[in-house]
């Protein structure tokens, strides 16, 4: 039978064994040194399922220290069930303080959003990435996409954008809009909405990306040039809501969720839950806004 303390002993600080954490940190340093380049890593199994944020969790657990204050959001919300479960797990394994306040956190793990409130040089944003390979939509084989990156051969991506324009009259990329990092690597920003993409450019904070299932890490260091792909005459555009404002805060200029109250009536609500709380309780937090070209 199961003997010893194999199942009952306390886990290592931040769950993962020290050697693996060291390996992940080394590879993160490489990722930061080569912005936008996907670094393969060991990606050990976590107690949460693949596709549920294992890559983000690896990064968070590898870089978190006892003094960190952690925030976890999923689709902009601190209360989303998976955010709760990740936050609870990281807290259990590290004892670190947790918060929902964007400004207060030193380390934020996110799925599919960048907080509206502007992040500072003291903060790290960790993205959970389902598909790190931005070229996967135009080339299914990993072997070839790596070669395309090595040769900076992004012609097929440009052609695919052009074809979208010819067929639909726009670039038709929803979340996960392809970006060029530091003028070199094409990169998937993870499925953040286009609304968030301009915030990747020349940011003050460090962005780290973890794709657990695909076993890749990448990074955007502070003040790096990040440009969404666009043509001179067909420009990148963020999502638009016209003059619609949030039903709770009566304010706009934030990513809005569309909520059906019934079949006829829709209401719109600010997606970022902490931003919404702040809008409702005090002055509007600092934000960096992008205006669509005319």
């Amino acid at each position: 039978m199961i003997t010893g303390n194999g199942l009952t002993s306390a886990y290592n600080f931040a769950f993962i064994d020290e050697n693996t954490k060291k390996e992940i940190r080394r590879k993160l340093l490489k990722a930061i040194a080569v912005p936008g380049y996907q670094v393969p890593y060991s990606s050990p199994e976590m107690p949460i399922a693949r596709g549920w944020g294992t890559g983000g969790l690896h990064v968070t657990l590898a870089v978190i220290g006892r003094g960190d204050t952690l925030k976890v959001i999923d689709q902009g919300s601190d209360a989303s069930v998976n955010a709760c479960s990740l936050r609870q797990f990281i807290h259990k394994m590290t004892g670190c303080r947790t918060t929902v306040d964007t400004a207060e956190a030193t380390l934020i793990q996110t799925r599919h959003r960048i907080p509206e409130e502007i992040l500072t040089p003291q903060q790290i944003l960790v993205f959970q990435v389902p598909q790190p390979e931005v070229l996967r939509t135009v080339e299914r084989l990993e072997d070839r996409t790596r070669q395309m990156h090595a040769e900076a051969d992004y012609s097929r991506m440009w052609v695919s954008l052009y074809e979208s324009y010819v067929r639909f009259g726009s670039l038709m990329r929803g979340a996960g809009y392809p970006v060029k990092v530091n003028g070199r690597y094409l990169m998937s920003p993870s499925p953040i909405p286009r609304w968030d993409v301009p915030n990747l450019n020349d940011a003050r904070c460090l962005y780290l990306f973890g794709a657990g299932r695909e076993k890749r890490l990448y990074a955007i260091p502070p003040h790096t040039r990040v440009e969404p792909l666009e043509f001179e005459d067909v420009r990148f555009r963020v999502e638009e809501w016209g003059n619609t404002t949030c039903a709770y805060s009566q304010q706009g200029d934030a990513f809005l969720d569309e909520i059906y109250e019934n079949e006829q009536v829709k209401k719109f609500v600010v997606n970022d839950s902490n931003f919404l709380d702040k809008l409702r309780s005090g002055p509007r937090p600092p934000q960096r806004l992008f205006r669509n070209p005319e």
Partner: protein
Amino acid sequence: MGYVAVKGGQDAIDNAALLVEYFRLKERTPPIEVEQIRTQMRLLVDRVMGEGSLYAPEHAALAIKQVEGDTFEAAFLLRAYRATLNRRFYSEIIDTRHMQVQRRISSAFRDIPGGQILGPTRDYTMRLFEPRLAVETLDSMEDLLRSIDASLTLPEAVEGIRTFGKVIDLLLSEGVMRKDMRGDADRRVVDVTREAIRFPAPRSAVLQMLARAETGGLMCLGYSTMRGFAAGGHGTVGELRAGKVDVRITDPRGRLRYVGRIVVTECEMVNSVKSGKKKDPTPYLSVGYGLCFGHNDTKAICMGMLDSSLREPNDSNPANSQEFTLYHTEGVESYGFTNHLKLPHYVTFQSGLDNLRNSMRRVREMRQRALAGYAGVPQS
């Protein structure tokens, strides 16, 4: 409210976890003991250990109990647990010529030195219900075991006490199979649990991935090779054997240490290959190799088929593509990602909806302009 409530997410997941326990126990039948699962669900335990990539029968049995028999979840539990353990040693190479054989068959030859040994297999049984199992008791179990014991001429052979030479050794000594035929093969030994697989992957990585792969996924692709979705016909089971092998490690002082004994299934699929070499165009036999934890004939055979097909790259057939086969038979990963679809996706969905609505509006406007043109209405 939806499942992303602004408040209450934490309560919801706590309650969901509690409900799972309730559903597991609500019928108030006697609890299944872990030891019963380990011993009476032997093949399930073996499968979970293989896919969980951890040879730990008690832990596998506990996992099966905890997740109500879901093999994906059980393998997942083992994988997550093994990720917390340091990799301290790599074992020495296991030579299955020293396997204490419980079962060995060859379909390539009518008879093999040492004989065909069926061992414990349901292969030749009629798949009919056995009603007495519905009312099995400790007494009926004892009666059956006593009668089996009484009929044994070599009681120790049941557990596998002797070793056998290998069928491929016959082919090697005859020269129809040679060890050096694929001199250009990538022989680096990598550890797929420590570094991400890269393509084209060395054979060591391929075999490790196949050994950890989900049995059903392997069978799907292995089967596809026999139905025309891979070059060539199907191979022949040169030898399929299962039994116990000793695991040894070299300690830091360089001494060989015995650390335990595990059950494995090994399969060598024999294929005829035409040599592509211009210097030496002699055709030869090659081996597709499979080895997995526990007793799992299907998995070992499919590994053998896929090891062969993966050495003939052809991206139009799934089983000839390393990337297709290795990525998509990885059970814990495919299970996780498939189920992640249950996570909320409203931000991503909204972002796509925005594009779609704009595109629909543009099309509508274009149509209206065109219609207006036909009607002779001057366009502004």
